[in-house]
C-alpha cells in the first residue's frame, strides 16, 4: 500500500511540480500569476488537441507549453505594461481560460489519442520498493526528475537566472546596467506559463489520457501555494509537489484498501494540508520572498 501511495505521489505530483517550477521563475522576477490554473487548463487542452491531430504526444507537450505561455503572456501585458493588479489579472485569466477550454474542448471529450505510455526503465524498475515508485512512469515524469535541478541551476548559476532574480529583488540594478526590467519580467512570466502548460499537458496526455472541462481541479492553485512555502527554491518545489501528489493519491489508496475515511475529507486533504503548511511555515517563508514580490503581497494595489 505504501508503494502504491509513493508511486501515486510521484505520478500525481509531476504536474504540480512543473507548474510550481514555472511559477517560481515568474515570482522570482516579481510577478505572481494566479492564472497558473488557467495555464494548466490551456496546456491540458492544447496538449490533448495537438496530440489528437498529429498523433505525436511530444508535439502535444509543445502545444501545451505554447498554450500555457499564451495565457501568461496576456497576464504579462496586463501586469507589466498596463500596471494592473496582479491578483485580479491572474484570477480573471483563470476564469477566462476556464470558459475558453470548456468551449473549445467540447469536441475533444470523446476523442482518443496516442497518449504517453508508461516506460519502465529496464533493470531499475525491478528493484523492490523504489522500482515501481520511481522507475515505472511516463517520460514526462522522468524529465521532471531533472527539471527541478535544472531550473535551480539556471536561476542560481547562470546570468539569465541572475537577471531574473535581480528583477525580483532589486529591479533598479537592472536598469542601471542596461537591462530592461520589463523584458525580464515578460520572459519570466511567459516561461512560467509554458511550464504550467506542460504540467497541464501531463495530466491530459499522460496521467488521465482524456480531456474534460475543469479537469485540473485546483492543482494550479496548490502549485501557487507550493511556491510560497517552498521559499521560491526549485529543489523544495520538487519535494513539496510530491507531498501534494501523495495527498491527492491518498484517497485512492485508502479507499481501495477498504479504510473507512470520509470521501469529502479525503478530497479536502490537499487543500487543508496546504493551508496548514502555510500557517506553520508561513512567517519564515514569507521573509524569504523576493523583495519586489513582498511589496506585491503586502500592499496589493487595487487602483
Amino acid at each position, binding site marked *: 500500500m505504501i508503494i*502504491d501511495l509513493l508511486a*501515486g505521489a510521484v*505520478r*500525481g505530483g509531476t504536474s504540480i511540480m512543473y507548474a510550481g517550477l514555472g511559477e517560481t521563475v515568474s515570482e522570482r522576477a516579481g510577478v505572481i500569476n494566479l492564472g497558473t490554473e488557467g495555464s494548466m487548463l490551456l496546456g491540458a487542452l492544447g496538449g490533448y488537441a495537438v496530440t489528437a491531430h498529429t498523433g505525436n504526444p511530444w508535439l502535444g507537450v509543445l502545444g501545451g507549453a505554447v498554450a500555457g505561455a499564451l495565457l501568461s503572456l496576456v497576464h504579462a501585458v496586463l501586469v507589466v505594461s498596463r500596471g494592473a493588479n496582479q491578483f485580479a489579472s491572474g484570477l480573471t485569466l483563470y476564469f477566462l481560460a476556464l470558459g475558453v477550454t*470548456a468551449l473549445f474542448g*467540447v*469536441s475533444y*471529450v*470523446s476523442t*482518443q489519442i496516442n497518449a504517453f*505510455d508508461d516506460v519502465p526503465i529496464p533493470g531499475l524498475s525491478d528493484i523492490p520498493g523504489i522500482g515501481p515508485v520511481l522507475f515505472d512512469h511516463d517520460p514526462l515524469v522522468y524529465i521532471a526528475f531533472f527539471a527541478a535541478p535544472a531550473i535551480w541551476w539556471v536561476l542560481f548559476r547562470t546570468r539569465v537566472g541572475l537577471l531574473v532574480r535581480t528583477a525580483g529583488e532589486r529591479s533598479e540594478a537592472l536598469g542601471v546596467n542596461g537591462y530592461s526590467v520589463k523584458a525580464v519580467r515578460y520572459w519570466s512570466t511567459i516561461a512560467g506559463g509554458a511550464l504550467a502548460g506542460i504540467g497541464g499537458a501531463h*495530466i*491530459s496526455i499522460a*496521467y*488521465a*489520457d*482524456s*480531456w*474534460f*472541462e475543469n*479537469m*485540473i*481541479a485546483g*492543482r494550479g492553485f496548490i502549485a501557487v501555494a507550493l511556491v510560497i512555502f517552498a521559499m521560491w527554491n526549485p529543489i523544495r518545489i520538487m519535494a513539496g509537489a510530491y507531498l501534494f501528489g501523495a495527498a*491527492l*493519491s491518498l*484517497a*485512492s*489508496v485508502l*479507499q*481501495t*484498501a*477498504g*479504510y*473507512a*475515511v*470520509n*470521501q*469529502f475529507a479525503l*478530497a479536502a486533504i490537499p487543500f487543508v494540508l496546504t493551508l496548514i503548511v502555510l500557517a506553520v511555515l508561513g512567517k519564515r517563508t514569507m521573509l524569504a520572498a523576493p523583495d519586489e514580490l513582498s511589496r506585491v503581497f503586502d500592499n496589493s494595489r487595487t487602483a
Partner: protein
Amino acid sequence: MRIRRSAGALIVAAVVAVLAACSPAVSNDDTGSTSAATSTDSAPGKDAKVVGVIAVGPKDDFGYNQAVYQGVEALRKNFPDIKVLDAYNIPEDDTAATTMESMVAQGATIIFATSYGHLDAAKQVAAAHPDVVVVHQGGLLDDPAPANMGSYFGSVYEPVYLAGIAAGAATKTGKLGYVYAIPIPQTLANINAFTLGAQSVRPDVEVTAVSTTAWCDPATQADRVKSLLSSGVDVVTQHQDCTKTIIEATEAAGAYTVGYHADASSLAPKGWLTGSEWNWGPLYTDIVKTAIAGKFTGSEYNANYRANMASGKNPFVSSKFGPSVTDDTKALIAAAAKKLEDGGSPFTGPITAQDGTVKVPAGETPPEETVEQMDYFVKGVVGTLS
C-alpha cells in the same frame, strides 16, 4: 462633485430597485408563458409545437448525457414538425429552472429535465406552468404527482445485475472494482446488483467500491483505477457520467471492462465483457406522443413511471458481449434475464448488508420505491458509505 456623483449613483440604484419592484411590461413572446392558463384546452402539452430538454453534462461524454442527446435526435427524427430545444451543461441548481423557464418562454409545452439533481427545479417550473408537461428523469415524486408532472426511468440495476454475472464468471482474482461518484441510491442499487450478480456465479467474489466525488473528473478517475488495478482487481466497472478514461486505463492494464451508460466496446477491444446502455428514443417518443394527444394527465407517465424488463420497455439495455465471454456465461445471463422478464428482481431476499443485518428477508421483493432509496452496501462490497 462627489455629492453629485454619489447622487447619480443613488439614482441608478433607485432605478434598479424600482425596476425590481414592478415587472416591465415588455414581453415579446406570450405563447404559453407565465401565470394562469387562459387557453381553452387545458390538457398540458396538448398539440405541442416545441419541446425542451435540459441535460447536466456535455452531449458527447461517451455516457449519460450522450444518451440523452441520442434521445433528442430520435425525437427530432420522429417528430419533424416539432422544434426540439436542447441545452447541455445545465447545473443542478436554480440555473436549471431559469433555463427551463426560458424554454417555456419560447413556446415549449413539454420539458424533459434529464439529470437526477434537476428535480427541484423541475417541480418549480411545473408548479408555475400548469399547461406545460414537465417530466423528470430519474427522480421520485410525491404520490399523487401534480397533473402536469411525471418522472420516468428504467430499472437500471437489472442489466447491471446481468453484467455482474459476466464479471463474476470472467474474474480470475475474484476481485472486482466499481468506481462511483457519490453514494446516491441509484448508485448503491447498481453496486449491490452488480455484486449480487457476480456472487450468483462466484459466491466469494469481492467488489471494491471507490468514489471520485465527481461525475466526471478524469485525473481522479485515472488515479482510482490505477489503485484498484494494482490491488489485484481484474474487472472494472463504474457509475460515472463520462466513461472513457476508466475504460482505457483498464484496457491498457489488460483487465476486463464492464461498461455503463453507453457502448464503449470500441475503447476496449480485448477486455470488453458487456455493459449497459441507454436507449431513450422509444420512451421519449412515447411520452411526447401521449402529451401531444392531450392524454398526459392520468396516464402511466403522470406518476413515477419505471420500466423494468418485465414490462419489456426498460430503456436501459444490456450492451453486446465482448470476444472473451464464453457461451456458458451467455447462457447463464440469458437464464437470469428470463427470470427478470418474468417479473423477478435481483433484490429478492435474503439480502444481507455489509454489517450483517438482513435488509430483505428471504423470499420477499422490495418495491421499486424502496430500491430507489437504498442506503447500504451488501455483503461482499469493500468500501464505506460515509
